[in-house]
């Protein structure tokens, strides 16, 4: 490939403006429907924001629109994860980061408490074991 066929360019990459994909409003409606369904049937719902084509900036606008509510939790699990209850109770924004603080996943969950926030049986078991080990060590030493 030669540069012959290439239109003239200074390659001065200017940040592309954000043309709306039109997905913002439908997303908000999806959240509204999910909240209604939770109230009526107790059904939980997860939206993977990565599966929806969004223009640069559009995701920020969505998050801005959802706002921050009463709960703001930060988990430290293979890099941080932020779990925020939006200004609409029951709608949670979950953002996973890697250890370099780059986003690896972003979800909106409609539920009482996102599953990942709850203590997990395996972890409780492992923690219990550690506690017991510790206690027996203390007792032995004592």
């Amino acid at each position, binding site marked *: 490939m030669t540069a012959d066929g290439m*239109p003239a360019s200074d390659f001065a990459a200017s940040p592309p403006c954000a043309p709306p994909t039109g997905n913002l409003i439908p997303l908000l409606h999806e959240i509204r429907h999910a909240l209604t369904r939770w109230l009526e049937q107790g059904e939980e719902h997860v939206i993977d924001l990565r599966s929806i084509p969004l223009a640069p900036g559009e995701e920020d606008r969505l998050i801005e629109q959802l706002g921050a509510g009463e709960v703001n939790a930060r988990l430290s699990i293979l890099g941080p994860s932020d779990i925020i209850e939006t200004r609409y109770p029951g709608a949670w924004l979950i953002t996973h980061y890697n250890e370099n603080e780059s*986003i690896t996943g972003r979800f909106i969950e409609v539920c009482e408490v996102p599953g990942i926030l709850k203590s997990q049986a395996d972890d409780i078991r492992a923690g219990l074991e550690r506690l017991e080990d510790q206690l027996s060590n203390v007792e032995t030493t004592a």
Partner: protein
Amino acid sequence: MSKDKTLGETLRERGISRRSFLKFCATTASMMALPPAMIPVIASTLDKLRRPSVIWLSFQECTGCTESITRSNSATIEDLIFDTISLDYHHTLQAASGSAAEHAREEAMQENHGNYILVVDGSIPGENNGYSTIAGISNKDMLLEVAAGAAAIVAVGSCAAFGGIPKADPNPTGAVSVSDLVKDKPIVNVPGCPPIPAVITGVLVQFLTFGLPELDHLGRPAAFYGKSIHDRCYRRPFYDKGLFADSFDDEGAKKGWCLFKLGCKGPTTYNACATTKWNDGTSFPIEAGHPCLGCSEPDFWDAGSFYKALSIPTEAIGKTAVYAGAAGLIAGAALGASLRARKQSAVKDHERVTIDDLDQES
């Protein structure tokens, strides 16, 4: 790490919490473009998974695919991916070298015969085996030998999947793809130059979790290659509105309009770039202002200019039309003259019609 333990056991031993595992499953599901409802299924499958042996062969390639996979998200996630498998041979990544490395490959093949996964990057010289060898073994021989005992093959990168750049015109080595040589094993093509790192790992996880994924007509997993770049492009609204950049530095380019006129291959290219994006979801070529080259499609290097619109003819049509007009003039004049002569002869053959000539003599 023992291969007999399940992935869940291994992770727990290493002190990875269940929450971390769930996070991994969630991001993996997202990566694989699976619906969030599948997250629990992935978690329970991976939990019980026994680590399969993976042999990675690199042939005529540039190591770009390996570079890509090693940049897959954070080091931790990559670790996790590699924790799910036992990478027994990868001559770029493994510590062993020389005969020790080849020995490791043979051992893995023997121990896991019929069960291991073969990953290939790079194309295979088809004309002369001498173009590319490893430890004196030609690429073709090695591929066929290792493929014979593999449960399945993952062809990573456009070279392994379709021949890629080595196959580009004039294809000096007679390069061919994996599927050109291996016919009797399931092959998953993960093309791209390189493939999106998350897609490589995503395909591996998907393969381990659910087995052979649904493939399109080019052997690509539909989950990642099911939609065209064009269909998921955030600049699509500009295409629909008929707003196009005419050059790389005009107003349209600055406003982020559609790059179709600049040769974007988005409409014919199937890949996850527009949603998964690159560099941990930062951007992708079109977002950076450059048309899609179509690198995950066969023969992308020879598929016409990167910078000519998809719709326009590749040859100099203006001249053809002029020559055609000239040829038409000559042929038409000759034909016209013969028809004229035919008419003239009819005029010559005319016999004057009188009132006695109005009835047929029967």
